[in-house]
């Protein structure tokens, strides 16, 4: 049966992985929610610290570049419909609702997701995970659940600071680089087209992405096999899965939160 239609191998493998990761992810989340992870609370804090000190700068730089792009495209689009002073509408929607979750998802998948696979995969290859089991420590709790809890501790704050940076970047490119609209006119429209619930929805989107990325990273690392080459292959596979997952979560989030109600301060 295998290899009957090679071009369909990708979607089939992907569906296969989806089920496995779902089961694994529920197990890890169960370890966190049942409180068993708090036996290793120090390790969770250490993982949160690694996340902040190792990945924060690159995440913010990436988010900043996307903010520049959001402002640039918005400014030129609004010029082409003859309403350059309304560039703030585009930036507000692009920054908060769509751009930031996607940028966050991409760079988290690239930096944190593959990093976790490389780390845990190397432990699996050098039999350290078996050693943990022999020592009577649950490897899933110690390696995966602590990382999940660490991500939940650190990532909301990284995300909120990212919002500040992406706003600053859009302001720079709309007002300073293209310069069709005055600073006051831009900010008036910009702040009018967003509200606190939008921020909460955006944060939920980002956190769901982060959770999935960490779980996918843990799964591929935990099940890595086949020597040093296996770790590289597993890392590559996790990135494939994460790219698709980020987009699907982004679309579902938009449909759920803004699909029926655009939440704009105009119209009846």
């Amino acid at each position: 049966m295998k290899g009957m239609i090679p071009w369909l191998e990708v979607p089939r493998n992907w569906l296969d992985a989806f089920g496995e990761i779902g089961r694994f992810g529920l197990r890890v989340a169960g370890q966190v929610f049942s409180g068993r992870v708090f036996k290793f609370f120090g390790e969770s804090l250490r993982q949160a610290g690694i996340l902040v000190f190792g990945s924060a700068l690159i995440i913010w730089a990436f988010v900043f570049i996307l903010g520049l792009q959001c402002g640039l495209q918005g400014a030129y689009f609004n010029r082409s419909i003859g309403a350059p002073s309304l560039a703030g509408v585009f930036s507000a929607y692009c920054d908060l609702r769509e751009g930031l979750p996607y940028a966050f998802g991409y760079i988290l998948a690239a930096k944190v997701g593959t990093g976790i696979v490389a780390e845990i995969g190397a432990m699996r290859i050098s039999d350290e995970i078996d050693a943990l089991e022999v020592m009577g420590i649950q490897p899933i709790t110690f390696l995966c659940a602590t990382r999940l809890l660490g991500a939940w501790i650190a990532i909301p704050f990284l995300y909120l600071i990212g919002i500040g940076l992406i706003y600053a970047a859009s302001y720079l490119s709309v007002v300073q680089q293209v310069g069709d609209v005055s600073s006051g006119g831009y900010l008036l429209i910009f702040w009018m087209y967003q509200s606190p619930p939008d921020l909460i929805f955006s944060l939920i989107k980002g956190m769901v992405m982060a959770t999935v990325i960490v779980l996918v990273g843990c799964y591929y690392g935990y099940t890595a096999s086949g020597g040093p080459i296996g770790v590289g292959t597993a890392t590559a596979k996790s990135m494939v899965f994460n790219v698709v997952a980020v987009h699907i979560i982004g679309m579902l989030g938009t449909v759920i939160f803004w699909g029926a109600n655009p939440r704009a301060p105009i119209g009846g």
Partner: protein
Amino acid sequence: MAGQALGQGLRPVKEVFEQVGVMVILTVRTLLAAVRSPYPYGEELVWQFLFVLRLSWFPLIVSTFALNFGAPGLQAAGILSLFGALDRLGGFFVVIAIRWIGPLVTAVVVAGVAGTAITADLGARKIREELDALQVLGVDPVKNLVVPRFLALMIVTALLDIFAIVMGLTAGIAAELLYHQPLGGFFATLFSNATITDLWASVMMCTMFGAIVAVVCSYKGMSASGGAAGVGRAVNQAVVISLVAVFFFQFVVSSVILATNPELQAVR
């Protein structure tokens, strides 16, 4: 003492510059090896092309559809429906799907799917000392391994960009249909806003992204070291560097193209 501390602090900056320099050298070497005879890489080029296409087509289609349906589709359709101007969505999709998201998602998917696979493959060969063996046999690894990947990725990203644009517009049509809108207005504004410049800029940008991803991922794979963790770490770094480079490059290129082509800003 102070100088030493400064040197310590500047070390990451120095490393970044060193890495960028080495990658530029590799790019030039690849280009020279590609045009100088003999040309032993034909078969490998075809094989790599099919390999990348087979890996990428499914994630690309799902990702572009999801991103374009959620971000520009539903968000823009929501606010345009308040104005009763849903037919303008076509003009909006020129900006989003052709100028911005098409190349961006193609680059993200190719970096995440094909780039990681290239790094894992070359990294594994490096770890098993196959690259050194090739050199001993008098076979140039740049000419025989990097050049075919470089050319294949450039061709594939340009091709996939077209697919991304088609899927993006399909997602826009889906959003229009969701709002029970006849499609005539969508296509009318789409074709009156779209210019040839948009299309060639999009494809050209994407070709460059393919080159960037190929060089970064080949370099990281060929300089992998340190056993089991090494290949995984190489994949991690490769995908982070490719994403940041691609996003930065896209901002610069689209700034230049938008500012220097007045027909892109005309009100239609």
